[in-house]
C-alpha cells in the first residue's frame, strides 16, 4: 500500500517572498515540517482526518503555524491522523491508514501517525503533532523517531482543533532529540490567544542547547506499575536503554505510582467528556456533508443526520460515552470521579519526581500492531495507552526517544522519560544521551 502520509500535500514555502512573515534567516530556514491535520493552516484544508471537515479551510493560522512561518520553515503538507485524534494507529482516519516507514505493514501509531511517518520516511525534517493521551509519543515510538509532549501550557493550543482540551498539547517530532528540541524552541512560549499558556523560558540558551547527552549524576525513577503490563521483549529493550544511561553516569531506582491503575479509565472519561462538548459544533450549519435524508427542517433531526454521516465509528463511540459520563445522574459517578483520580495521579507524580530527576518507562507496552489488528477491539487499543495517558492527566512533559529494537520481531521500541512541569530541558538532556552510543 501507499504510505499515505499526507492528507493534503500543499507546500507553504518558508522562503516564499509572498509570505511576509517568513524569515529567510530564521532558525528553521531551509527546514521542512509536516503538520498534523488538526492544526489550523490559513487557506489550506484542515480536516482532522474526518469526512466532517473534508471541505473546511481555516481562515486563520494556528499560533504555532505563525511561529513556523516566522522562523522560515517550509510546511510540506498536512499529515494524516486518527479522526479528531481519536486512536493510536492512524487507522480511524477517514482518508485511509498510513503505513509505518520503519516497519512496513504495521501501523505508525497514532493519533499523529502521519507526522511521525513523515519524519521516519524522510518526507520532512521535522513534524508537529498533538498529544492528548500519547498521540505524539506513541507514533514516535512506533516509527523510531523522537517526539516531545510539552508541559500543559508551554505551547499555545490556539488553532489546534480540540479533542480533550484540558489534556492536550502540540509538540515536535524530529529524527534526533536536538532536532525536536529546536522545533520546540520555535513553538514554545506564551500566547495572548491561549489563556492557559505560561511564560516558562528555558533556563539555558535554548531547548536545543540542552541536548548535550550529559546524564552524569541523573537519577531515574522507574515506576514499576508501568512495566507490569508491557510485553517482555519491550521490557528487555527498555532495560537495555536504562543500562546504557547507567553506563553514562545515571542512577536508577524503582518508584511506585499506585494511582496509575485508574489512569486509563480516568483519562478516557475526561477526554471523551470534553470531546462530546468540543465536537458539538459540527452540526451541519457551517461544516459537514450535506445530508441527503429529508428532515423537513427539523433541527434535531438535521444535525443528528449530519453527525451520523460525517463522523466515523470511533468518534461516535467517544461522543456517546462522553455525553453519558456528563449526564445528570452519571456526572458524579464518572466525570467527577475521573477528576478525583486525575488529582491523585498528579499527586503521585509529584511524589515520585521528588525522589528522582526523571521517570522512565517503555513509551508503549507493545511494538507496532499489524495494520487492521486492533481496530475491532477498542478496549485493547485503549489499554495500549496505559503508559502515556497518566502524563497528560498530570499536565507534565514527556519525551519518547528510540530505545532500540525488540529482539523478538525487530520492531522499534521507544523509551519515555517524564519530568517535572516545565522540565523539558532535563528530558532533552537525558534523552539525547541515548543517541551518543
Amino acid at each position, binding site marked *: 500500500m501507499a504510505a499515505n502520509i499526507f492528507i493534503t500535500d500543499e507546500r507553504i514555502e518558508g522562503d516564499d517572498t509572498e509570505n511576509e512573515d517568513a524569515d529567510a534567516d530564521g532558525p528553521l530556514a531551509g527546514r521542512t515540517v509536516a503538520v498534523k491535520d488538526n*492544526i489550523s493552516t490559513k487557506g489550506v484544508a*484542515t480536516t482532522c482526518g474526518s469526512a466532517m471537515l473534508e471541505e473546511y479551510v481555516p481562515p486563520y493560522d494556528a499560533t504555532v503555524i505563525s511561529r513556523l512561518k516566522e522562523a522560515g520553515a517550509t510546511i510540506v503538507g498536512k499529515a494524516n491522523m486518527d479522526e479528531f485524534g481519536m486512536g493510536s494507529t492512524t487507522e480511524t482516519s477517514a482518508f485511509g491508514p498510513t503505513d509505518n516507514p520503519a516497519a512496513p505493514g504495521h501501523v505508525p501509531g497514532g493519533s499523529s501517525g502521519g507526522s511521525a511517518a513523515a519524519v521516519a520516511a524522510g518526507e520532512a525534517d521535522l513534524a508537529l503533532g498533538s498529544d492528548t493521551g500519547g498521540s505524539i509519543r506513541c507514533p514516535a515510538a512506533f516509527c523510531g523517531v523522537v517526539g516531545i509532549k510539552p508541559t500543559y501550557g508551554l505551547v499555545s493550543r490556539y488553532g489546534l482543533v480540540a479533542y480533550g482540551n484540558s489534556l492536550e498539547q502540540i509538540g515536535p517530532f524530529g529524527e534526533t532529540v536536538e532536532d525536536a528540541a529546536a522545533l520546540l524552541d520555535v513553538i514554545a512560549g506564551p500566547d495572548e490567544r491561549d*489563556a492557559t499558556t505560561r511564560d516558562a523560558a528555558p533556563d539555558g540558551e535554548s531547548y536545543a542547547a540542552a541536548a548535550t547527552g550529559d546524564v552524569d549524576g541523573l537519577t531515574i525513577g522507574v515506576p514499576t506499575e508501568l512495566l507490569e503490563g508491557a510485553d517482555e521483549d519491550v521490557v528487555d529493550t527498555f532495560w537495555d536503554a536504562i543500562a546504557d544511561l547507567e553506563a553514562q553516569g545515571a542512577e536508577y531506582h524503582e518508584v511506585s505510582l499506585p494511582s496509575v491503575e485508574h489512569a486509563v479509565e480516568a483519562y478516557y472519561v475526561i477526554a471523551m467528556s470534553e470531546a462530546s462538548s468540543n465536537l*458539538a459544533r459540527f452540526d451541519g450549519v457551517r461544516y459537514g456533508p450535506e445530508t441527503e435524508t429529508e428532515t423537513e427542517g427539523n*433541527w434535531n433531526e438535521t444535525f443528528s443526520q449530519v453527525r451520523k454521516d460525517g463522523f466515523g465509528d470511533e468518534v461516535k463511540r467517544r461522543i456517546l460515552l462522553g455525553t453519558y459520563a456528563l449526564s445528570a445522574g452519571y456526572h458524579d459517578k464518572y466525570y467527577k470521579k475521573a477528576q478525583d483520580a486525575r488529582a491523585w495521579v498528579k499527586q503521585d507524580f509529584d511524589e515520585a519526581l521528588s525522589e528522582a530527576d526523571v521517570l522512565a518507562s517503555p513509551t508503549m507496552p507493545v511494538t507496532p500492531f499489524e495494520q487492521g489488528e486492533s481496530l475491532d477491539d477498542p478496549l485493547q487499543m485503549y489499554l495500549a495507552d496505559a503508559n502515556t495517558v497518566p502524563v497528560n492527566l498530570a499536565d507534565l512533559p514527556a519525551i519518547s526517544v528510540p530505545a532500540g529494537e525488540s529482539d523478538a520481531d525487530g520492531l522499534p521500541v521507544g523509551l519515555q522519560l517524564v519530568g517535572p512541569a516545565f522540565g523539558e530541558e532535563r528530558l532533552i538532556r537525558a534523552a539525547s544521551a541515548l543517541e551518543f552510543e
Partner: protein
Amino acid sequence: MTAQTVQQGDLVTVIGLEVHVQLETDTKIFCGCSTDQTDEPNENVCPVCLGLPGALPVLNEGAVEAAVKIGKAIDADIPEETRFHRKNYYYPDLPKNFQITQYDEPICADGDLEISVEGERRTVTIERAHLEEDPGSLQHVGGGGGIDSADYTLVNYNRAGTPLMEVVTAPDFRSPGEVRAFLAELEEVLEYLGVFDAERDGSLRIDANLSIIPEDEIESDDVTEIGEEALAAANRTEVKNISSHKGAEKALAYEETRQKNAIQRGRAVEQETRHWDESRGITVSMRSKEEEKDYRYFEEADLPPLRVSHWKDEISIPELPSARRERFQDEYTLSEEAASKLTSTKQVADFYEDVAQEFDPDLAATWVADNLLGELNYRDMEITGIESRLDEVTRLVELVATDEITAKNARETVLRSMLDDGRTPDEVVAEEGLGKTGEDEVQQAVVEAIDENPDAVADYESGDDGAINFLVGQVMQKTGGSADPGDVNQLLRAELND
C-alpha cells in the same frame, strides 16, 4: 384544598425572574470583536466568536469588572476566584453548541435590591448573578416569517459573544407591578454603574416564572416567605420573550389572570414554557410537559480561574440612585417626587447637581425635573440626546435666575426653540426680542397707561382693585410682553398711590 373550592381571594401570585442584561463593553467577552450590533450582519466576528475549530476564548476583564460593580451595587458575595463552565445544548444560534457560562461559582451570589412599591419599601433577594456569552441571533425569512413557518433562517453572529449578566431573583414578587418596579430600579442601577445601555436593542431580556398558590400556604405573616413545598406543589409557567419592564408587567398580568381563571374553573395549570406575544398582548404555549433539560455542565478548561478577591476593593462604584434620592431630599430639600425624577438617570442627576451648585436648588429642580424633562419627554427624547448642549440649558437657567428673561418666555419660547431648531438661548432671546424691557421703559409705559385710561384709574381709586389688572394688561401690551407682570403691578400701584 381542591382546585374547585379555591376562591380568587384565597390565591397568591408568586413570581421569580431571570434577567439577562447585556453589559456595555466595547469588545466581546471572549475576543476583541466590537459589540456594535447595528453593523452589517456578520461583520463583527472572528474565529473565536464564530466558534471556529481551534479557536480559544480569552476573558475580557472589562466584563468581569462590570460584573463586580453590579455585585457591589446589589451587595452580593463576590468569591475569591471565579471560573467558567460549559452549558451544552444544540441550537443553531449557538456557534459552538455550548455556551460558556458560570455554574456553581457565580461572580455574584446572595445579593439584594430594595424597591419601592406604592410607597412601601421591599427587598428583593437576588440569588445569583453570573457572566456568560450571548448567542448569535436568528432571522426567519420567507413563508410565514415565524420560527416554524419561515422558508429559511439566517444566522447573524454579531451578537455572539456579547457579555451577558444573568440576574436570578428569589420568587419574591407577589404582583406584576412589583416586577415592573424591580426591573425599573435594576435598570436604573445598571445605568448608574455605566455597565448597561438601555437604548441598545435586546439589551434587557426577561424570563419570568409565575405560579399561583393558596394563601394559607404562606408560612408566616411576611408575604415574602413562601413554603418551598407549596411552591414545588404548584405548577408554574415560564414566560419568555419579555424585553422591557412595561412588557413584563403586561405579560405577567395576563398570565396571572389566565392561571387564576383556570384554577377557578377547576382546571389544572400546566407546567410549561409560554411565549409573550407583545403585539397580541397574550402568552402562548411553546412547549408543554417539557422534559427536564440536562445541560451537562462541566468546567471550561480553556479559561483558568480568575482571582477576583482584591477587585472588590479596587473597583469603586458611584452613588446609587436610592442613596442619591435620599440625599437630594435632605441636601436640596426636595420632595420625594422631585428627587425621584431628578435621579431617574445618572446624567439627569449629575446635571441637576451642576445646576443646583450655581443657582437656587429649587429653581434648578423646576428647570431640570419639570421644564427640561417635560419638554424632552414630549419630544420622545432623552437627556443623552442633548448631552453636548447641557451648558446651553444652564445658560438658560442663568438668564432666568438673573431676571433677564421671564420664566414663561424661557420655558415656552426659548427652551422649545432650543430643542426644535437648535438655536442657543442667547440667539433665541436676541432674535425674538425677549430680553426684559428696561426699567425706564416700563416706567414710561406705566405713566402712559395711567394717562390714557382715566376710567380705569377712577375705578381703582374708588376701590375696585380689579381695575389694576386691566392697567397691567395695557402695560404688558406696550412692552410687548417682556415686562414682568408682578413688577408692573407694583409700579402701577406705586404710581397711583403717590
